[in-house]
């Protein structure tokens, strides 16, 4: 039985958690709010802050209410605190507390662990907004510009979601952590964001699409695992965040897909048969398929690092404690405690990659990473179907999980995209055929010119198949000329 979660607008912060009746948390959030708005104005999307953008805002958490579309100026977006409805009688779905009633308050012994997980998740949200703040200047269309901003405002809302949990359940420590989320900066030397991939630049739109496809997908997997949590407020928060995360996956998958589509079309029109004739393809003003493959290799491998070490005591503890589950935990058919279970884990043994059975409990990260790879492979299949349909002979592939890694068992090894362990010299010699180099970046950059006429698209990307909210092709998603 679900209980309804009405959204109330009686405070500055729209919410369905009864904020007006919780003076302490309301006050804390009201103190945090101005800092957030400052952060948004200084480090959110550059320019465009006073433009009307056609955005969706969640006005309630039931399917009917969470996609209201209208024009809004971004700083006036109604960032709210929205939790999925409470499931009555929900029990902890895994770990040593399996079957016990879900916690409505933080259990004392897991307080530090929970806080850390929430802070790490929270840190990624503003980080990606910071990484993407310069992209507005080179958007290939108003449609894409709007999608970028939608992703940005929702990452902002996800920050709110985590900050609410910190304020509500973690007292003075929580308030401090919430302030910290506004103080760290993506790419900063002094106070960088917590995870590596969130300190990399997002220099161009193909990088943005790859980021939303691969890196935000890590976010989706993490949120899904946290949505299983025995700590009910975290579970409910993440469940609702997942509905928004789907839009980010959409922007990534269709963004890369449309880039590939346009390249293939341009090749057909020009009668170019050989996808590796990079010079000829680039002369058409589109991004050649081998370069797209290199970008894919880079973003995929960076994203795999986000899953942490393959064998991890922290992950085992979080699972055992009932804090962070597995992907789609409730759909897995086992004991949900992993007392005697094993899981195959890749290892580097004497310079060879081998699979060893390890206790499943300590291989939680590995399992989530495998689920991620399966999930990510789906879109690659669909891109290939699209290429095949145009008649171009080329296939995109996900590189081997050991390729170009900085974290985990493969961090020390040099491994080809095909999974062959090679010498550092051999790696250096071929690196630029697997990963983008400066000249690739410069070429992509040369194509990044803003297209601001409604219904028009930059030459390197195909238009989408359907508009947002079923709008016609020439819909003005961002009003550039009127505030």
């Amino acid at each position: 039985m679900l209980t309804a979660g009405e959204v109330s607008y009686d405070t500055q912060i729209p919410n369905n958690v009864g904020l007006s009746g919780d003076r302490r948390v309301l006050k804390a959030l009201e103190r945090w709010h101005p800092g957030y708005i400052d952060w948004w104005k200084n480090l959110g999307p550059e320019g465009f802050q006073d433009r009307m953008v056609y955005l969706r805002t969640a006005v309630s958490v039931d399917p009917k209410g969470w996609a209201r579309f209208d024009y809004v100026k971004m700083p006036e977006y109604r960032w709210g605190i929205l939790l999925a409805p409470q499931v009555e009688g929900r029990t902890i779905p895994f770990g040593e507390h399996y079957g016990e009633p879900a916690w409505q308050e933080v259990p004392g012994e897991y307080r530090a662990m929970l806080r850390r997980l929430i802070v790490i998740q929270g840190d990624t949200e503003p980080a990606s907004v910071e990484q993407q703040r310069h992209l507005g200047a080179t958007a290939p269309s108003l449609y894409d510009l709007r999608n970028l901003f939608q992703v940005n405002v929702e990452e902002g809302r996800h920050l709110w979601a985590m900050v609410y949990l910190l304020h509500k359940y973690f007292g003075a420590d929580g308030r401090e952590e919430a302030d910290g989320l506004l103080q760290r900066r993506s790419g900063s030397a002094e106070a960088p964001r917590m995870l590596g991939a969130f300190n990399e630049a997002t220099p161009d739109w193909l990088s943005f699409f790859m980021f939303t496809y691969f890196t935000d997908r890590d976010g989706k997997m993490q949120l899904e695992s946290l949505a299983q949590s025995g700590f009910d407020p975290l579970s409910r928060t993440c469940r609702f965040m997942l509905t928004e995360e789907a839009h980010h996956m959409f922007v990534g998958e269709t963004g890369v897909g449309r880039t590939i589509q346009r390249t293939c079309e341009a090749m057909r029109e020009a009668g170019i048969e050989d996808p590796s004739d990079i010079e000829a393809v680039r002369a058409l003003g589109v991004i050649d398929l081998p370069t797209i493959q290199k970008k894919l290799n880079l973003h995929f491998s960076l994203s795999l690092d986000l899953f942490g070490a393959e064998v991890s005591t922290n992950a085992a503890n979080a699972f055992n404690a009932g804090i962070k589950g597995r992907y789609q935990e409730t759909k897995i058919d086992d004991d949900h405690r992993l007392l005697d279970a094993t899981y195959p884990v890749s290892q580097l043994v004497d310079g060879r990659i081998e699979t060893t059975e390890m206790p499943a409990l300590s291989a939680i990260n590995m399992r989530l990473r495998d689920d991620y790879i399966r999930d990510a492979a789906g879109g690659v299949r669909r891109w290939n179907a699209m290429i095949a349909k145009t008649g171009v002979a080329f296939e995109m592939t996900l590189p081997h999980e050991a390729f170009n890694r900085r974290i985990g068992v493969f961090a020390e090894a040099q491994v080809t995209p095909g999974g062959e362990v090679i010498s550092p010299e051999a790696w250096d010699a071929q690196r630029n055929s697997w990963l983008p180099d400066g000249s690739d970046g410069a070429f992509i950059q040369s194509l990044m010119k803003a297209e601001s006429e409604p219904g028009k698209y930059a030459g390197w990307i195909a238009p989408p198949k359907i508009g947002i909210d079923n709008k016609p092709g020439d819909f003005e998603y961002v009003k550039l000329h009127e505030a």
Partner: protein
Amino acid sequence: MTVPVKQHLIDPEICIRCHSCEEACPVDAITHDDNNVVVDFEACNFCMACIAPCPTGSIDNWRVVTEPYSLEEQFSWMELPPQETISTGVAGDSIEALEDEVERLLAEAHAGAGGHARAPESAAKPTVNLYSRDNPAVATVQGSYRLTSEESDSEVRHIILDLGRTVFPVLEGQSVGVLAPGTTDKGQPHGPRLYSVSSPRDGERPSTNNLSLTVKREDGGVCSNYLCDLKKGDQVKLTGPFGSTFLMPDDPGARIVMICTGTGSAPFRAFTMRRQRAVGAGDGGLTLFFGARSPEALPYFGPLKKVPEEMLTKHLVFSRLPDQPRRYVQDRMREQTAALAQVLTDPKAYIYVCGLKAMEDGVDEAFRSIAGETGLDWSALKAELRDSGRYHVETY
């Protein structure tokens, strides 16, 4: 011959497999394998809860089929199959139209019922899609009359279309598509606009082959301006008829409650006239809740006054009377709690809501509190009423 049915499908070329729809579906009709996310024909009840959460728009696809696609077939798709060619004719109540575009408009209009509505059991069998965009019916304007006073800033017109010798069987509650001439600024012909017919099945006067529409002139509205500007003798292209659920029961003992605002009164004019002609007083009873800004802005205010109270119980509610508090249909409904509570439990009572989308929530809330008064759960009751053809919503 197998009666064609409507099937909800997901476009595998656009879907990104985020499973938001699967999460949103209250009846677990949506499932997936490694390839596709698919809708189970047997389970889907057209409640539309999955439509808004879809980030891609791939969810909004419909096919009329004689044999529904199985889950296995859908799992294997790389793209949607084209709509098979299906001949027009009498349809079961799962098909409101045989055209995607119109089907979608009607699905949206009927979404307020919270699931796929059913026609009342005693309703006459409707004909749908006799005329299409490629093969429209041509009608001639017989007259066009302003219904709202000249002082009112809202212009609503009663337009009578003569069908001459064209066969155009239409039931009260059904809609017709109007094809406005000209093209969009992208050079495409304008899509059909749907208008609910405001005359009964046998015409404005008994046995005349005509129908009437109730049209409000909208600022910048292509079709409404076209219709409102029509002069006597002008020709109009029509498609349809469409709609197979928002129909009145033919049972003379059925009690009908009609709730509307503005041009949402069109089908209720037809219902009332049909009752008057076919049954007369002594029937199950008609009740009308009708909201407008003022009497001047209420379509059919004059003629409505003349319908005897024993035939039709009238609740006319106004939201902009000078020196009066604003009153809406839901306020009057709440005042009528006792009578409406009885309606909710009367197996012979049928409820119809028609008007702007904005009225939906207010009416729903009023019913919730009326049901609550007698200890009934409105959500459950609404589903029950809908499934037995006794609750209908058409809003736009």
